[in-house]
């Protein structure tokens, strides 16, 4: 469904990704783990066109999408829940969700989509007219995911959804991700919390200073001594 071929991205003179290749198969949850500064966010930004790779290709359902503007990539069916959520703090929860469905012109469908999000995250329904900036961190994460779902993405990219959240909230978020995946959305999950990510995914890639250094099924990687030492703290 998604394939990166030898993608290299830099910020000015600083090289953030070098020759990154991996793929995500339809229906799975794949994860990209790595420590802070490894280039995980840059990978997602390169997929969405928010960062421009200077070499390599990004293919979505066989179609080359690098060099396309971000809003067109979004329209193809990829949604990104950015690191730090990036909810529109000065807009209401409802307006945030409506913006997620910006490309949906059919107002009946929009209503249905909203209902779907409320089922997944009932907390949001209680706070519809509240400014998004006044939500707790966990609620903002729910809103960011709900907003992404409003666009009916076939591929959902999540950038550190567990960041800064209490364990119970993280649990709830990951349960919701599992439901979203069961309902047919392919997921690429980026995490620093490798333990959690490997338990919740089928395939995994390890990113170190801009390069993919290990790959395999999540169970394999969770048993790999190098992964254990570097990322699982064992």
């Amino acid at each position: 469904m998604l394939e990166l071929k030898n993608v290299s991205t830099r910020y000015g003179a600083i090289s953030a990704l070098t020759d990154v290749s991996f793929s995500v198969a339809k229906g799975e949850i794949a994860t990209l783990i790595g420590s802070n500064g490894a280039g995980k966010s840059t990978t997602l930004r390169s997929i969405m066109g928010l960062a421009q790779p200077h070499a390599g290709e990004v293919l979505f359902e066989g179609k080359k999408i690098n060099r396309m503007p971000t809003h067109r990539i979004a329209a193809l069916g990829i949604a990104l829940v950015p690191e730090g959520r990036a909810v529109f703090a000065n807009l209401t929860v409802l307006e945030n969700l409506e913006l997620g469905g910006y490309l949906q012109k059919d107002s009946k469908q929009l209503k249905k989509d909203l209902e779907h999000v409320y089922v997944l995250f009932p907390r949001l329904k209680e706070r519809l007219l509240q400014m998004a900036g006044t939500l707790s961190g966990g609620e903002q994460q729910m809103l960011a995911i709900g907003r992404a779902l409003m666009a009916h993405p076939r591929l959902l990219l999540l950038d550190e959804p567990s960041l800064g959240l209490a364990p119970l909230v993280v649990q709830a978020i990951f349960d919701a991700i599992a439901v979203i995946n069961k309902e047919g959305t392919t997921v690429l999950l980026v995490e620093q919390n490798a333990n959690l990510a490997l338990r919740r995914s089928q395939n995994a890639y390890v990113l170190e200073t801009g390069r993919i250094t290990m790959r395999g099924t999540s169970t394999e990687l969770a048993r790999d001594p190098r992964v254990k030492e570097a990322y699982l703290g064992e």
Partner: protein
Amino acid sequence: MESFLQQLINGISLGSIYALVALGYTMVYGVLRLINFAHGDIYMLGAYFGYYLSRLIQGRTPSHLLDAAVVMFLSMLGCALVGIVMERLAYRPVRRASRLTLLIIAIGVSLLIEYSSQVIFGADPKFFPQLIPETQIHMGGLILTNQQIIVLFTALALMVLLNLFIYRTRTGKAMRAVSFNLDAAKLMGINTDQIIALTFALGSALAAAGGILVSINIPGIDPLMGVMTGLKAFVAAVLGGIGNIFGAVLGGLILGLAEVMVSGYGSSTYRDAIAFLILIAILLFKPSGILGKGQVEKV
């Protein structure tokens, strides 16, 4: 008391013009974090477009009011196009450039418009045709002109319309999203380049309306008329909190009232100084402006 009321009305009337122009500064700043110093010149172009359009249209429609409305609408449309072209040619290619580069480009665009206007329109002032014959209206002890009333209501109506657009439409929502977080807006599938162009168009149209409304009251127009008004409207935007729509309206009204009160009760010599006193005071005491929050942005 009556003279105070009279001053109040004059102040609100002047303030609503500043507010119209300030809105353009604040909206563009909202989406691009750019102070578009050429914005005052769009106001001037609005007046000039109005001048030439008046000569074509005056007397061709059934009423004076309709004459004025058609002139204003077409001039707003013309300036909206100028705004779009300006964004496309001058600002879009340097979107990622440093703030200093943007600032220098904005000043360059401003000078380009001012001096090419002197060449095209002539440097001498022109007399804006009287689209609506003046009649005086006595209300109690107050003397108002029909023109003042029209100006005031048109300005207020435009602000209400803008507000409805920004807070009640899908595109307005997209504009608020762009202004809050450009990248996140793109992720929603919003074509942010279009929204930015639209922001320039709307801001420019409002400035054009300001230029025409002023010329209806004070008919002398010249190619540098946008410099002082532009600066004052900028001060109004900063006073209210740049980037904040309500702030621009509030700042405009405060500035208009302050100017009128100073020249009414003090000395008209200081009229133009008041804007700059206000600017210095905000920069010293509350750089984010009355309604502004968050960090102070250095231009």
